[in-house]
C-alpha cells in the first residue's frame, strides 16, 4: 500500500533496524518456538557452564592424584560418580573430560570447517580450470582411508597432544565440507548478485568473503552444528583402539574407553556409563539445536 509520507527518518530507521532480525536472532526465535530445542539448549548450556567452570572448584593437581586405596569406589556422597582405577573422582574427571572433549570437538569442527569452507569457496567461486584441479585433488583426498591414516599419523607424531590431535583431525575431516560448500558455491555463483558484484568491480576475494560466504553461511552453520555433535565423540573410538588422546588427558573418550574392559562394563558402570550418557545427551542436544538452526536457515520450515 503506497502512502505519501514525510518521514521522521530516525525513528523509522531505528525501527527498520529492529525489524530485521539477524540470523542469530532468527535462530533464537526458532529455538524458543521449539520446546525440544529450548530444553536442549538449556541442558547443553548448563553442562558447558559447569564443565568449563570446573577448574574453579576442582583442584586439578589434587584430582589427578592417584590413590590406590580409594580405587573403583562406587558412587557415594564423596565421589558422586565413584572413582576410577587410580582412585580419582570420576565426576571431576568427567567435567574436565567434557571440557576437553567439547573443546576438541569444537576446534576440529571450526578448523576443519574453515579449511573446507575456504577450499570449497575458492573452488566453487572460480569454477573452470581451478575448480577442475581442486576437485581432482579433493577426489583423491576423499579416497584416503581416513581412520587408517589417522592411526598411522598418531603413531608418527612425536609430540602427540591435544593440539596435534586437533590438527590431525582437522586436516583429515574437511573433505566432505569442502564438497558441500563447493556445490553450493557453484549454485550461488550463477546467481546474479555475484555477477552484479563482479560488474561493480569488487575484487574476487571480497566477493567470496562478503557476498558469497554470508549466503552460504547458514548452510555452513547448520552443517557445523551437526558435525560438532559427531566430533565430540571423535576420540572415543580412537581411544578404544588405543590411539586416542595421550594418557592422562581426561576426556570423555578416555572414560568411555574403560568400557573396553568387560569387567568394567558390567560391574563398574559408573566409570564409563555416565560419560557415554553425557556424550549421548550432548549430541542429542546439539542435534536438536542443529535442527532448529536448520529451520531458521530455511524460511520454508520455520516454526516461528
Amino acid at each position, binding site marked *: 500500500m503506497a502512502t505519501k509520507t514525510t518521514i521522521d527518518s530516525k525513528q523509522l530507521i531505528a525501527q527498520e533496524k529492529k525489524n530485521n532480525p539477524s540470523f542469530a536472532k532468527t535462530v533464537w526465535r526458532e529455538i524458543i518456538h521449539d520446546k525440544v530445542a529450548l530444553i536442549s539448549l538449556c541442558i547443553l548450556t548448563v553442562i558447558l557452564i559447569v564443565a568449563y567452570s570446573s577448574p574453579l572448584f576442582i583442584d586439578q593437581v589434587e584430582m589427578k*592424584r592417584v590413590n590406590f586405596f580409594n580405587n573403583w569406589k562406587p558412587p557415594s556422597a564423596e565421589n558422586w560418580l565413584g572413582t*576410577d582405577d587410580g582412585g580419582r573422582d570420576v565426576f571431576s574427571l568427567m567435567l574436565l573430560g567434557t571440557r576437553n572433549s567439547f573443546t576438541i570437538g569444537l576446534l576440529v569442527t571450526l578448523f576443519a570447517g574453515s579449511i573446507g569452507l575456504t577450499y570449497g569457496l575458492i573452488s566453487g567461486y572460480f569454477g573452470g580450470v581451478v575448480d577442475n584441479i581442486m576437485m581432482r585433488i579433493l577426489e583423491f583426498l576423499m579416497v584416503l582411508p581416513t581412520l587408517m591414516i589417522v592411526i598411522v599419523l598418531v603413531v608418527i607424531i612425536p609430540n602427540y597432544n591435544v593440539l596435534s590431535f586437533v590438527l590431525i583431525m582437522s586436516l583429515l575431516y574437511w573433505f566432505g565440507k569442502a564438497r558441500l560448500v563447493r556445490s553450493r558455491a557453484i549454485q550461488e555463483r550463477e546467481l546474479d548478485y555475484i555477477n552484479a558484484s563482479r560488474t561493480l568491480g569488487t575484487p574476487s576475494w571480497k566477493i567470496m568473503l562478503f557476498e558469497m560466504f554470508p549466503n552460504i553461511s547458514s548452510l555452513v552453520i547448520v552443517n557445523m552444528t551437526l558435525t560438532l555433535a559427531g566430533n565430540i565423540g571423535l576420540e572415543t573410538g580412537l581411544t578404544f583402539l588405543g590411539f586416542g588422546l595421550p*594418557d*592422562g*588427558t581426561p576426556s570423555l573418550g578416555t572414560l568411555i574407553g574403560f568400557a*573396553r*574392559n*568387560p569387567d568394567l562394563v558390567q560391574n563398574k558402570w559408573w566409570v564409563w556409563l555416565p560419560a557415554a550418557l553425557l556424550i549421548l545427551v550432548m549430541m542429542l542436544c546439539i542435534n536438536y539445536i542443529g535442527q532448529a538452526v536448520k529451520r531458521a536457515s530455511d524460511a520454508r520450515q520455520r516454526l516461528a
Partner: protein
Amino acid sequence: ACSGKDKEGSGEKEPGKEPEKEQEETKGEDEEEAEESSTNIDFPLEVSNNAEPIEDGEMTVGMVTDTPFEGTLNRVFYSGVYDAEILQYFDERLLASDGDYLITNEGAAEYKLSDDKKTITIKIRDGVNWHDGEPVKASDLLYAYQLLGHPDYVGERYTFLIQNVEGMPEYHAGETTEISGITVSDDDKEITITYTEATPSLMSGIWAYPVPRHYVGDIMTGETTIEEIESSDKIRMNPIGFGPYKVAKIVPGESVLFERNEDYWRGKPALKSIVLKVVSTATVLESLKKGDVDLASIPTDQYLNAKDIDNIEILGAIDYAYTYIGFKLGKWDEEKKENIMDPNSKFADKRVRQAMWYAMDNETIGKELYHGLRYPATSLIIPVFESFHDADLETPSYDPEKAKALLDEAGFVDVDGDGFREDPDGNEFVLNFASMSGGETAQPIAQYYMQNWADVGIKVQLLDGRLHEFNSFYDMVKADEPKIDIFQGAWSVASDPDPSGIYGRTSAFNYSRFTSEKNDELLAAGTSEKAFDPEYRKDIYKQWQALMADEVPVAPTVYRYYLTGVNKRVVNYSEEPGSENARPWKWAVSE
C-alpha cells in the same frame, strides 16, 4: 611379547628375554615362592578335581587375545606367542626338562654331556614317530640347525647358543654347507653337537626341536627354499610334529582342532580332541562361565570377577617377567660396542637411586591396583628360578623416611623452599620419566610413582608430558635419548637365569648403561665352565643380586602372577613346570 606359556617345561620355553609390552598377560609362579612373597593370596598350581577321566573326552582351550594368531606353526619360523601355544600340542622338544628348566632324560631323547662340557650327544628313543608315521631322525634335528644357521634365514632364533656350535659361523656366512660341530650317527638316531665354548646355558637353552625334513622338504638339496617353507601350507594348514595331538583342521586366525595322536611315544593321549580357539579379553570370563572354553588365562584386571565364577578353578603361577625402573647412567658406544658410564649422570650418586627405590610404594600398587596379583620385586633374578633367586636378599622397600635421609645425606636438599630438592650444587633437580602406554593401568602407575617421588621431594615429570607407544619408547630408550632420565620397562625372562644379555658390559640391552668391573667378573663366572656346578653358579648369582641391589642401575618394581581359569571338570592339569600333568597328553576331563 613374552613367550612363557609352554606347559611342557622350561626347556620348551623359548630362550629369550624380551621387554614386556605392558599388555596384561600375567603368568606363572612357584608354590614356594608364593609363600615367601609378601602377598597373602595363594593359588593352586594343579587342578583339584581327582575324578576319573572319561574316555575320549573333548576339551576346548581358549587363547586369550584380541588378535588373530599368525599361524606360522613351526618352531624355527614362528614369531607370535600364540603360535607357540598352538605348537605345544603337536610338537615337542626332544629333551624334557625339570622344575629348574634343566634338561632331563625323560623326554623323547636322552642326552650325554662330554667331560669338557663342550659336546652333547642326543639319542632319540625308538618309537618316536612323526604324525605321518615316519620315525623322528637325528638328521631331522640337524636339519633344524641347518635351517637356523642358513644364510637365508631371517628369523630371531639364530641365537648365541646356535652360533656357539662349532662351524656354525662359517656355515652361516655361506662358506660351507656342512656344520662341522654336528655329526649324526649311521642309524640316524644319535646326534652329537660340539660347542666352541662351554656354557651352562646349554642345560636349559639347547635347541632340541627337530624339523620333519621329509615332510617340509629339504633346502640342502635344493628341493625347496626357506622362503617356500615359511609360506608353505605344510607349516600353516597341515603342520606335523611328534607331539600328543595332531592338527586336524585350522580356521586361520581363530581356531585349531587337534585330534589324538594314537601313536604318541608316551602312550595314548587322554583326550580325543582339543579345540584351541581365540577368545577376546572381553569375553574370556563369560566363555569360561558358559563352559565354552575349559581352560583359559584370566586377565589380571578381571581377577575379582573370575573369583566368583563357580564352575572354574583358578590356578596361578609366577610369571617369567618383572617390571623395573631404569636409571640412565651412561651411553652405548657404537664404536666399541660397549656401554660407557657417564660420571656426570644425574644419578652418579647411587644413594639417589637407592632413595628413589625406597620411595616407591610397590606394595600398594600390587595390593590395591592388582588385587595382590603383583607384589614388590626384590632381585633381578626372578623367583621362577628357584635355585638362583636369592629370597633373602635385602633390598630397599617402601620407606619414604629412609629415602629422604639418603637424599639429605647425598646433599640433595630443598634450598629454595618449593617443596622439591635441588642437587648438591643448588641447581634445580628435575627428572624426565619415560613410560610406555598401553593397558589401562600404565597411566595411574606412572602417576603414582611420580607422586611417590614427589613425596620425598624429587620432582619427576613425564617425558613430553605423556606416555609413549611401545615402539617409540624403546626407540628412545635404546638410542639413549638425552631427555630421558628414568624409564619404566619390563623384561620377560627366558629359561636361563644368565642375566648378562641385559646387564652385561657389551649388551646393547643394558639400557641403564651400567658397568662395573665386579659386574663383568660375576657375569663371566656365572656362565663359565665351572658354573655347570649348580652350587657355584648359585653363589655367583647371589653375589650378583646383592651387587645390583646395592648399585641399583635398575630398581625392580613388581613380580606378577598369571592366572589360568580351568573348568572344574578338567583333570590332570598342572601349571607346575616339569610336572607330569603340565604335559597336554595327560590332560583330561571328567564326568
